């Protein structure tokens, strides 16, 4: 069969107006169904004819999935809320600037207007081998092309490789992990709440999926608890160009400090593994430590312990180390 790209094949389109209908449709069509949010990841797959769902369920017409609700100091963000809405929301900005920063660094204004928070955290990896439609592990095959000795892998992982070496491309994901957010996932059997840290799944556990979502699951909302409201935040994304570009490495951090000491910390890095990596060891190290250059240096060094670069991504080690240092420095 010859390969042809950039031409979307036909599918059956459903446009439910309620969450219940969406869940029912997802359940009914199981593996053959695809939930469509902003479409920025979805359409790529469709156009390339690599993922060919028989049924597409457009979530765009479900009002209940859009909007930001207050829950005490915390916020419930509907999965279909656009990234620009998240970035611009006054409550997000005043309490969780980290998330606003992350959302506003995604791609371009057009993409942020169209892309949703739910889609952003659920998007698939951008590994160029996988995206080329090659039969790699992630595509159900038995090979990782990106880790072959001569492979091109500057954009691949340095941590958590397990056969597959792809990275998570989302900018908002590390911010949400740092904020201890949770995801509400609904399916026919009910709603379950998944901690953001567990929402993202590495290849060791599931090599074909990036998230805990299974066929039939609908991500309904992302809850950001009050815990970190108004904390000190640091977000930095390093990419090849200033816009319209996925991160090489991203750091998202939250600190509570008092008298020059770090009382509480969350440090999360993305672009280095198939999931946003929460640096528990670094958090332990900096908690109770002065927000000093020494602490920053030590945190950076600790962050990359155990990292294992591929041929072309050794620089990510240095980049991750430096970004973690910068994050810790920012707490001073």
């Amino acid at each position: 069969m010859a390969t042809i790209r950039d031409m979307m094949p036909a599918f059956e389109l459903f446009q439910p107006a309620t969450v219940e209908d969406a869940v029912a449709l997802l359940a009914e069509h199981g593996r053959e169904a695809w939930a469509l949010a902003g479409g920025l990841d979805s359409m790529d797959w469709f156009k390339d004819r690599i993922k060919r769902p028989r049924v597409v369920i457009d979530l765009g017409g479900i009002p209940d999935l859009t909007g930001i609700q207050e829950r005490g100091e915390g916020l419930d963000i509907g999965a279909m809320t656009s990234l620009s809405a998240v970035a611009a929301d006054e409550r997000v900005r005043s309490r969780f600037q980290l998330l606003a920063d992350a959302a506003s660094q995604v791609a371009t204004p057009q993409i942020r207007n169209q892309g949703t928070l739910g889609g952003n955290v659920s998007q698939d990896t951008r590994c160029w081998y996988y995206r080329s439609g090659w039969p790699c592990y992630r595509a159900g095959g038995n090979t990782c092309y990106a880790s072959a000795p001569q492979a091109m892998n500057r954009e691949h992982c340095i941590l958590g490789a397990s056969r597959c070496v792809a990275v998570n491309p989302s900018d908002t994901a590390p911010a949400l992990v740092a904020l201890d957010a949770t995801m509400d996932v609904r399916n026919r059997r009910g709603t379950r709440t998944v901690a953001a840290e567990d929402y993202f799944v590495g290849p060791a556990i599931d090599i074909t999926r990036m998230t805990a979502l299974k066929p039939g699951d609908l991500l309904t909302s992302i809850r950001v608890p009050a815990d970190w409201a108004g904390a000190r935040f640091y977000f930095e994304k390093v990419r090849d160009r200033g816009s319209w570009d996925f991160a090489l490495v991203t750091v998202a951090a939250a600190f509570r400090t008092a008298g020059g000491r770090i009382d509480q910390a969350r440090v999360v890095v993305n672009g280095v593994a198939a999931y946003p990596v929460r640096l528990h060891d670094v958090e332990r190290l900096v908690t109770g430590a002065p927000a000093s250059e020494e602490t920053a240096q030590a945190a950076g060094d600790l962050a990359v312990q155990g990292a294992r670069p591929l041929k072309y991504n050794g620089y990510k080690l240095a980049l991750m180390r430096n970004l973690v240092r910068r994050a810790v420095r920012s707490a001073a």
Partner: protein
Amino acid sequence: MAEKLIGTDIAPPDLVAKITGRARYAEDFRADGMAFAKLLLSPMPHARVRRIDAERALSMPGVLGILTADDVPQRDAPAEQCLTNEPVYEGEPILAVAAVDEATAAEAVERIRVDLEPLPFVLDPLESLRPGGADAHVQGNVIVDREWKSLKWTAEEFASAEAAGRLPMGEPTSEWSHGDVDAAFAAADLIVEETIVHQSVTHHPMEPRSNMAFWQNGKLHIFASTQSTARTRAALASALELDLEDIVFVAEYCGGGFGSKISGSTVMQIPALLSRKIGRPVMHRVTRYEENYFGRARPGFQGWVKMGFRADGRMTALDLYLVEEGGAYGSGDFGTAGAVAHLTYTPENVRVRAVSVFTNTPPKAAQRGPGGAQIISMLEPIVDKGARQLGVDRLAIRSLNAPGSDVRFGPRLMGLTSVHAREALELGARTFGWDEKRMLSGRRNGTKVTGVGIGLSPYTAGSRGYDGLMVVRPDGKLHVHQGIGNLGTHSIADTARPAAELLGLSWDQVEIHWGDTSLGVPRSSNQAGSQTTHAHTRANHAAAEDAKRKIQEVAARTLGGAPGDYVLDGGRVFRRGSRGSGMSFADVARRAIELGGHFDGHELPDDIHAETVTAASKVAGQGLVGVAKDNYGGDGAGVYSWVVGFAVVELDTETGVVEVVDYTGATDCGTVIHPRSLGAQVLGGSIQGMGMAMTQRWVFDPKWGVPFAKRLYTARPPGMLDVPLNAQWAAVGIPDPTTPVGAKGIGEPPVGAGAAAITCAVADALGGRCLCRTPLTPDIILTELEGLRKPYSPTATHIG
């Protein structure tokens, strides 16, 4: 008084259509019964088609036909066929299917089985030159004297070079020199030597090379995406072996080409041939994915350079060796690269050796400043290295080495019409504030280090001898017929300004006709080599002089007196001093039609091109016809424009991210015709160069021989946030004395300037360390800053 048209900002006539979306690009045209074509591309970088089984496709409802390599004009490599049975790069079109809609055509393509025999392939020219290395074509890897040859260097040549971390340099296929480089190096006060790598990058114009075609009464009607109009028709006629007049060629707008659509594209033949085969109009909308493959790319260089300097900074010797990645169908950028290097530094002793090797990477083509942009962006930081070691100011070393108008350069020691490189350097330095800004070099602000760079870039900017054609119609307006293309540069309008000015018209009295050969278009230049402004201000000037003469003659015949008594202004012709009397141009046009003969185009000059003759006969009788060949002369001297770029960058030493915080481009391109458009060219071209140096990347998997970055976003051309918003431009504005309007072209020289200003500024920020390779992305820079072991060899390319 009529407006002053030269040197003012006038919106081009197609602006509103473009902004409102009413402009029709190739894929916007429709015809009754139009079918759609889809291509089957080679999945392998080199293969032979053994068998095509299209049974399952052709039996699908809605599928109208198939076109294979056997149906298209046969060519011997390195000439390229629009469909092939021996693909030499991944993505080369093997066949096309027509169907009632694209979805059906795509599904049909999917159902076709092509049995391919994989053949040895090679991506890196050096690998092909290695003993035992693969050849990109079964016939060989280089062409010498029009003959295919399998060129291999010795293992020893590779071993010694690799041990020294330098480019291997075996037998070249091209070599020229002046003076005695060895003696000059022996006498030099300073020698610098580097191995350089310039990546090959795709063009990726916004509009893919889509085309639509149908046949009517034996004539091919084709709607194409191309940089040129008249010349593309000619190219298509020769490709399809048709009479020029049997093609009605329409190309009103072009969403960019940058050298990749000079005379259209090879795939342009497909809808024409498929339409003839199935008897229906065929639209072929090229996708971004396909554009990555057959949308052309700038050839890459792996090179080595050695420069000898006198203590004062004067370059006394230049020795350059270039290995060019020629791609699937070859390329010759190295020729211009050598000449431009010689021109920019004018060393008395120069040697340029090169070999252009065929590779199984997508085909190369000119890309805005071909050869020149690459070499300038690579050599400028090495000149800086010399300046640094000699303690010479970087602006001064460029002024010292830059040529004047008396220069002779290149293998044949060509002369130029005018050179004001030093003036451009001075003007640029003033506009940019070099004296203050150079002090920023090395300044540290937190983790950021400032770097400052200058890039001086010349490029060809003119040609001669084309024809102009225009009609003063009874509506009183001047109708200028343009055979040039409309590739977004405003040339269709701006090259008509001298004609209008000469005839004393204001701009609203001018109509431009372009983009459709049935309107009658004169013999024109290609929209390439930055020649259009020069070539067609001349051609239109010549035709306007002809029209003016005729208008004066008509007036004299009608109102009495001698033609020389009459002057033209505001759409009227009148006796000098008596503005109130005379004739309107509308009357002149009517009178010219009455008079006939040469007045209304029924008699034509002998020296115009046959194409212009046909075009003029189309307009004959419409009014007073001005038609002439550009006979202003000057043949033998080259036309070059110059741009000097000045940049300030901030390099973050912890992330390797480079931010361009300030940029100025100053140009010597003769008379300024359209300031705003010129600024767009100077800065736009510079930005293209910045992208080439910093953000763009084309990675290939060496095992499978296939590229990544198949999308616009993965090819990473620079975006709004990658460029300084306060960028400035300036023009020297000294008219070229050899051309009546004084204007030279500008499209290409900015690219090298923008790129070199960045490569120099980054090297400056790194304390003078030249990485001598592109792109300068965070990974490459951080690897250097952190002293990490480089995962690539000094000559490696297409990596990432």
